[in-house]
């Protein structure tokens, strides 16, 4: 890997893929992503799709909480808004799946704007609780606005189609997920190195100082909420077309916690951190499941204790991550890269 810093102008400084080495490995990774569905079984493709949705949602949350510093405990509500919007548009108004995705994102963004208004009056912990309130209120609406959402019965959604090709298996849907993930990651990564991204970071670090320097807090905070909710809405819309059903119980408070964990464990304020976090939070429980299956087959009596132990292990992982690597997996990744930059020399 390269060492030293030989940038000669700002454009080169802001490059996302600065060297041919990085570009090469990226290309290889993309080839792997394209081959993957042909070698994986249905269960692994299911997990991969779920990771994809989680990535999009996590990037949204990271933009709001990691980059702009607005703590949000209501992310699941926005995912739900997007999910229900897409479902209602497809089943009630006959909108095609492809159009419903951006529309769902827009409706979520609108919801985000509304919920973001308190952010102009309160900060930090108080905003946190305001978004929590929004989460429960939306949950209530999902259950009780039965004329639209069909309440607890939920809505069944047909799979998306292009012509006569149905995206109804995990393998087929994977392509949709892949496209949206790439779009989402690309946009976010570019956003954070643009003027808007810098404004977000300024707001996070010292918002009063940012205001003095001419950054319109009102505009940028609300934009952050809107963009974050757009991502959440798209993630939700994709998720429900994948599952082919949406019920209010899909969006509990626990989902907010999961996304927060993704963002924090992955690394606040880092797009690649969101990706790592999403992968971590989706894979680790599944790995624990597989592991406990294996352990159970060898020690049949211990079956009952292994189950809750999974919870303990999981909580323990989160706590240790936060204590020992508070800047998340992204930081870990950076350190590994730095190590190899100078290898075999140590400094």
């Amino acid at each position: 890997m390269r060492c030293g810093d030989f940038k000669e102008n700002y454009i080169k400084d802001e490059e996302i893929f600065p060297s041919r080495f990085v570009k090469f490995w990226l290309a290889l990774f993309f080839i792997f992503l394209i081959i993957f569905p042909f070698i994986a079984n249905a269960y692994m493709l299911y997990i991969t799709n779920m990771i994809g949705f989680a990535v999009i949602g996590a990037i949204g949350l990271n933009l709001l909480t990691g980059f702009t510093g607005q703590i949000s405990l209501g992310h699941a509500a926005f995912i739900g808004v997007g999910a229900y919007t897409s479902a209602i548009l497809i089943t009630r108004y006959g909108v095609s799946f492809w159009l419903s995705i951006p529309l769902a994102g827009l409706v979520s963004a609108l919801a985000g704007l509304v919920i973001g208004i308190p952010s102009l009056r309160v900060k930090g912990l108080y905003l946190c609780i305001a978004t929590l309130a929004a989460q429960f209120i939306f949950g209530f609406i999902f259950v009780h606005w039965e004329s639209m959402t069909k309440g607890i019965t939920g809505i069944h959604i047909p799979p998306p189609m292009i012509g006569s090709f149905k995206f109804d298996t995990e393998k087929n849907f994977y392509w949709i997920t892949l496209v949206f993930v790439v779009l989402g990651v690309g946009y976010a990564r570019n956003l954070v190195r643009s003027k808007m991204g810098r404004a977000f970071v300024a707001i996070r670090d010292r918002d009063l100082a940012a205001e003095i320097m001419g950054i319109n807090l009102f505009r940028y905070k609300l934009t952050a909420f809107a963009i974050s909710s757009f991502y959440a809405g798209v993630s939700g819309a994709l998720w429900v077309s994948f599952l082919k059903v949406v019920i209010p119980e899909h969006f509990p408070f626990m989902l907010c916690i999961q996304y927060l964990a993704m963002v924090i464990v992955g690394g606040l304020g880092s797009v690649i951190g969101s990706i790592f976090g999403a992968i971590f939070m989706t894979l680790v429980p599944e790995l624990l499941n597989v592991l406990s299956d294996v352990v159970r087959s060898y020690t049949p009596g211990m079956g009952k204790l292994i189950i809750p132990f999974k919870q303990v292990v999981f909580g323990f992982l989160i706590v240790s991550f936060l204590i020992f690597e508070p800047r998340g997996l992204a930081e870990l990744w950076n350190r590994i890269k730095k190590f190899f930059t100078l290898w075999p020399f140590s400094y």
Partner: protein
Amino acid sequence: MKKIGLFVLGFILFLGPFSIAMAQQPTICAIHPFTGRFAFAGIEGSVAMQDVVDMANEAGGINGKKIQYYWADGEYKDDVAIAAFKRLYAQHTPQIMFGQSTGMTKALGPEIKDRYKVLYSAYTMTSEAANPKENPYLFIAAPTYTEQVGVLLKYIAKEKPGANVAFFYSDTEFGREPILASREMCKKLGLNLVAEEVSQVGGVDISTQVLDMKAKKVDYCIFHGYVSNPIAAVIKQSKDYGLNAKFMGTFWSTELQLLKELGPLADEYVGVSAYSFYYMEENPMIKKIRDWTKKKYPKVEYRSQSYMEVFITTHLFVESFKRADKMKGGITGDNLVKALQSIKNFDVGGLMPPVTIKNNSIPVGRVYRGNSKTMRFDPISDWIRLD
């Protein structure tokens, strides 16, 4: 990135041999709610399933083939359960599956019909699982929730025609499921549905609901969607506030643990269940369960109704396996459905009256009253047919 690729490859190689080896045996995969609000049911249910499989395998299995049984924890969360369902299916390609909740069943219903084609039952008695036209592969070994409420309503109509009835249900899919149809039933039986109270499972304060029922002069209050909380609190507080109503409940709350919570007020509760209780030893099947339990789990003193539900469901699974094995094509999902629907007057040793599958359910139930002196349920009606 490369590390993930290697890991995934290793994962595939690990799983590959397993799936090929196991596909041919009669296989049951189940998702039990080991953690979460229904954990008490999941733990007992999984033991029940294991017991039936072991009993059947000891008796020779399915014409010599041993039944394979695998399970996973669904945590009473739908997305975890769905992931577990797909994982188990990918690993073992079972012919029969058992799910954890109403929510998961509804979510997977269409896919089971179109893609998986496995015989399926679950910890639920939702009407969607007793609908052979829409969901031919789903069935329940019990009456649906609507039918259970129907039993209670018929009992009320006989005891006090034109009575004031209240529904007290939980704000969940499970709780709301039979309400629509039950409202109609009230009208048909000439009962006045004067109040509908809703609360979360585990609400701290239900005084407004109790007071509302008092204001509306409720004679009978039917609970649904709860296990024990807040039923005990409502019954206790009704005494404090002077609400003179009779309390009734559906299957999942008609359990001994509710009676323990009620203490001296246990006589106030009437419930409906499709099965006999563990202490009704005069039934040969119950005796068999008791002997097995004493042998294998000497410390266990009681098996709940959740145990009975899963026990009988698995018992029917085994019977379906046996019948399907003799059909052309052997053990497949479609044959299992045909086998299940051929079950008529099947003797289950008194756990239930002889079983006839109708509309993919067993519409039979009995009304029980709690007894505060013996801390047990006494039957106050005969087995009622609900069709």
